């Protein structure tokens, strides 16, 4: 009798529902995990707990007002979301920001990349068990958030860029402060590496965990550091340069194996490259305007006025109103992508000529990375699932939108 039961136990799998309120899932992600013993057989991610309907809301707001919604997509790197949206609208309108605005945007985008990677390193290390890293990373992140406060008056929901440029200029003192901080930052990154890179516990927990080959990574649609760790050279900053990236020199760090350790190395090296980019930008910072002369005002109209034509007869006055509306935006569609800290962040906007987007679709990297979790976790232990969620750098605000 007893033996029979044990045999039955071998056949059945154990189902564990992880989340949505689990500190290691980085938000409200729910994973339905099936285990055989302690090995993962199957994982089904469930998303949608943080759905706020941002894409639908965007259809009822003017283009400058939609920009404030994009703050709330990936709430720890709101500056790059804003820049991505503004770039998409600029490409739709066919305008280009002045050179100084481009450099300022590059600086703030790289600061955001630093702060996002710092938060990733902090929480990823905390999940695996390195508590000290959490405190060190937040120390530096606080500094970066203070720079944001100096630049635009807010720490997280910045709303700093504007369609056709940026809102306010950066003072020279703040630029000098950022320059000095970058030297400190490089030292700090070295510190993080001495703590973690050679640490035997860290290596044991991350080496050969969640391996993705280059082909798999491309076919699953991974982007950003998760793709580059597998050895695929794809960075939108190099492939389709936007803003001031053509004017600066930087390297794209690549990994070899595509495991969690490589993704860690990739991101840490990227932090160094970000610091180099910011320093180059401050050195080369040109003077001039920060807003294009063709840029739309922020009090943009919802709809255009009706077109006026000269009337055929004088009975109804001299003019005739037609049903056609004047175009505020050109009628077309555009897809533009930028390299956000998490991966390729794309905005697909269809315009019908009015001041509101007819449809806005966000290609969020986190959502696509979540779809890679089942593949990555196959055959791993439960403790490794936590490491894999951490290494993909998921933010649920972006995935559920």
């Amino acid at each position, binding site marked *: 009798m007893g033996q029979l039961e044990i045999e039955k136990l071998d056949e059945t799998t154990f189902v564990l529902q992880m989340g949505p309120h689990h500190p290691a899932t980085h938000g409200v992600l729910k994973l339905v995990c099936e285990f055989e013993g302690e090995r993962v057989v199957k994982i089904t991610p469930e998303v949608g707990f943080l759905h706020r309907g941002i894409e639908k809301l965007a259809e009822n*707001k003017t283009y*400058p*007002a*939609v920009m*404030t*919604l994009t*703050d709330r997509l990936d709430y720890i790197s709101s500056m790059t979301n804003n820049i991505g949206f503004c770039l998409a609208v600029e490409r739709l309108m066919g305008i280009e920001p002045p050179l*100084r605005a481009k450099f300022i945007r590059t600086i703030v985008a790289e600061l955001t990349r630093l702060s996002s990677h710092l938060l990733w390193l902090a929480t990823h290390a905390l999940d695996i068990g390195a508590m*000290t890293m959490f405190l060190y990373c937040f*120390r530096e992140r*606080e500094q970066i958030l*203070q720079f944001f*406060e*100096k630049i*635009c*008056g*807010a720490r997280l*929901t910045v*709303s700093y860029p504007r369609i056709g*440029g940026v*809102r*306010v*200029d950066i003072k020279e003192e703040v630029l000098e402060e950022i320059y000095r901080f970058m030297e400190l930052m490089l030292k700090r990154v070295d*510190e993080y590496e*001495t*703590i*973690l890179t*050679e*640490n*035997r*516990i860290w290596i044991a927990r991350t080496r050969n965990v969640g391996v993705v080959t280059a082909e798999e990574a491309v076919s699953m649609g991974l982007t950003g550091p998760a793709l580059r760790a597998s050895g695929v050279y794809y960075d939108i900053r190099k492939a389709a340069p936007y803003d001031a990236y053509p004017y600066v020199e930087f390297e794209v760090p690549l990994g070899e194996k595509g495991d969690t350790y490589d993704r860690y190395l990739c991101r840490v090296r990227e932090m160094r490259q970000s610091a180099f980019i910011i320093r180059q930008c401050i050195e080369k910072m040109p003077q001039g*305007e*920060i*807003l294009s*002369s063709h840029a739309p*005002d*922020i*009090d943009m109209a919802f709809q255009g006025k009706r077109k006026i034509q000269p009337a055929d007869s004088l009975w109804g006055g001299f003019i005739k109103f037609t049903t056609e509306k004047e175009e505020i935006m050109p009628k077309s569609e555009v897809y533009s992508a930028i390299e956000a800290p998490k991966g390729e962040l794309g905005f697909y906007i269809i315009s019908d000529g009015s001041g509101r987007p007819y449809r806005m679709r966000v290609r969020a990297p986190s959502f696509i990375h979540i779809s890679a979790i089942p593949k990555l976790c196959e055959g791993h232990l439960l403790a490794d699932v936590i490491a894999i969620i951490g290494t993909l750098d998921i933010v649920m605000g972006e995935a559920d939108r």
Partner: protein
Amino acid sequence: MRKLLNKLFFIDLLKGMFITFTTIFKRPVTIRYPKQKRELEEGFRGRHAFVRNPETGKENCVACTKCAQVCPSQCIYIDYSINDDTSSRVLIKYEIDALRCIYCGYCEEVCPVNAIVLTEFYEYASYDRKSSYFNKETLLKNWDEFINQYKGEDYLNKFWYLPGINRERLPASKREPNAVPIIKKMENKEGWL
């Protein structure tokens, strides 16, 4: 050989431990918040206020309703009547639902007379919803509260002036830096409230 020694004597772990150890001799980066307060940066987007005009003692608002149009979360409610003699607008109601506000600063950027401002004041959490629902009087009171703790000669918000932007894009009254001169303890003067 070296690798073996490193492994035997836990060199990799000790290196990390050393960094942690040196922080004993460093100053803490944290502050004890309610007792100690960090100074806010210029242009922080905090609680809303109406600028009290030092000459008239009233608000500057001309009821153009631009702020209500541009507000992404639609949290500003304005009502006005038209004075028949001068055919100018008279502000009747001006309400801001601060719980809905997302602090983007579009309202102060678009205001043609620099009437509304997001002040550098952030400690206004409360237990009821009513105290975060500002009307004309409370907005003026917010300004007095902010300006009494403000250290400086005159006040110019960054988003009123928008440094770096081509001046001709802005309405005529915003092209020059129009700082508000500060007269402390305004609410104590007679006839203003």
